[in-house]
């Protein structure tokens, strides 16, 4: 497994290095600009653009800037000690106006803040509200769910209609993927009880994959590159793995097969292992998808940074290359997430003898 992560490490390193360069260089630029041309409004700030694209938003932004922006307003749902406030994000007029509900809210950097009468942010009150808004990511998730449901419900309908006949149309495209998850992910890693976990693995695989692909669309949301989403998915895996963990799994954690005096070290290590596995899942998906988006936007931003059309062909060529790579990554990350989930489930429900398992482990390490 670590081999796969290692394969992506160079790419990730490059991406973060690039990001850091951009960050620092434009931070300098901004400072210089601020000193030299304090009134210049049109200064291009790539970090802002990048972060706007990879962050969640209360508007589904299509084009245009600030007051001239064309965007789809989304519902804002805020829960506070005074109850729910539900309104459309267009009430903020792209962050220029406050909204007077049970509190007075403003939209600042796409975050909803509570302000007092003088329009000064009230941090104490802000910390008390919970934002349950249908943000761009949530809306995108609804769309993805609609797509997934329509795909698979119609596929299921085709099976009801055609019975066990050879697959046709949509079936013949989706069936190999379903079979792939079953035969290459679930069964090799889980074994005999694989079919019990198959619905979960299939759901998680297609949810991640479809959302990865939707994120690649020009106005798509960076859903699977959002830490909250990957956190939730990793949390679900964590729950599924540990709820299904059998006696030998827990015994391995609480009574590791080492001399008793090593228990003070080993038990904490094993306990950390329970959490580090889903944590790695969370970070891997988040970092891979976000990094891809950052690279594409950075490449396009080059045109505006150099303020030259001559750079456009280079940017477009590179962006196209990265986009095609991202198509692969979209599938690969869905695969890795599902595969590791299957692996964790497999190790949690496996009935094994400790001595054998460790002998094999030690053996493998020597190679």
């Amino acid at each position: 497994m670590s081999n796969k992560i290692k394969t992506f490490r160079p790419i990730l390193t490059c991406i973060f290095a690039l990001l850091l360069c951009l960050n620092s260089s434009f931070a300098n630029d901004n400072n210089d600009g601020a000193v030299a041309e304090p009134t210049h409004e049109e200064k291009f700030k790539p970090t802002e653009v990048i972060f706007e694209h990879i962050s969640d938003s209360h508007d589904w932004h299509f084009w245009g800037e600030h007051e001239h922006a064309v965007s789809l307003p989304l519902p804002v749902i805020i829960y506070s000690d005074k109850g729910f406030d539900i309104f459309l994000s267009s009430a903020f007029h792209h962050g220029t106006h406050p909204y007077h509900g049970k509190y007075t809210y403003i939209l600042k950097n796409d975050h909803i803040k509570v302000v007092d009468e003088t329009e000064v942010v009230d941090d104490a009150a802000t910390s008390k509200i919970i934002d349950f808004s249908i943000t761009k990511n949530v809306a995108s998730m609804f769309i993805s769910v609609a797509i997934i449901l329509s795909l698979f419900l119609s596929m299921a309908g085709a099976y009801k209609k055609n019975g066990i006949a050879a697959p046709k149309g949509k079936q013949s495209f989706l069936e190999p993927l379903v079979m792939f998850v079953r035969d290459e992910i679930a069964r090799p890693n889980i074994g005999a009880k694989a079919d019990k976990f198959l619905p979960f693995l299939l759901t998680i695989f297609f949810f991640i994959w479809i959302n990865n692909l939707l994120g690649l669309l020009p106005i798509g949301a960076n859903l699977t590159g959002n830490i909250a989403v990957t956190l939730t998915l990793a949390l679900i895996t964590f729950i599924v793995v540990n709820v299904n963990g059998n006696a030998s799994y827990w015994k391995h954690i609480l009574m590791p097969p080492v001399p008793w005096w090593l228990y003070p070290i080993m038990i904490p290590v094993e306990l950390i292992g329970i959490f580090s596995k889903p944590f790695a899942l969370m970070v891997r998906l988040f970092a891979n998808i976000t990094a891809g988006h950052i690279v594409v936007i950075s490449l396009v931003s080059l045109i505006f940074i150099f303020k030259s059309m001559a750079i456009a062909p280079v940017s477009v060529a590179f962006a196209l290359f990265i986009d095609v790579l991202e198509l692969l990554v979209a599938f690969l990350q869905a695969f890795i997430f599902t595969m590791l989930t299957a692996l964790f489930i497999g190790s949690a429900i496996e009935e094994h003898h400790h001595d054998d398992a460790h002998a094999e482990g030690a053996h493998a390490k020597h190679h």
Partner: protein
Amino acid sequence: MELVTPGIGLVFWTSIVFAILFVLLAKFAWKPILGAIKEREQSIEDALASAEKAKEEMKTLLSNNERILTEARAERDELLKDARDIREKMIAEAKGLATKESERLLQAARENIQNEKMAAITELKNQVAVLSIEIAEKILKSELSSDEKQKSLVNNLLQDVNLN
């Protein structure tokens, strides 16, 4: 830092949406799809197994045919051999019979000839005897026609007796 701070709203919606998606898909999509795939695999497996069985049966059938054919051929050969044997036996028998018959005929002929010969010999003997008697009669008649001759005969005979 903002990038790695999960928003509670999104966690909430993701949980809800994923749970609903899972329930719906599990009940209305994965169950029929996986069921149909399994059923199809089972039917393919069965079809393959029955094809294998049919092949096996065909093989036994073929080998049966082969066996029957071989048997038939063997039987034919046997029949032919028998026929040949019978023919040869018949010929031999016929030959034997013919030989015997001819031998018998020859024997009969030979016997016949012998009989005829014997009869002829007997006849001849009888003729000779008759002739001899007749001759003897005539000689006796002539010998005994005169007394002298009778005397000389008696003398002759007596001489012979003395010699004995």
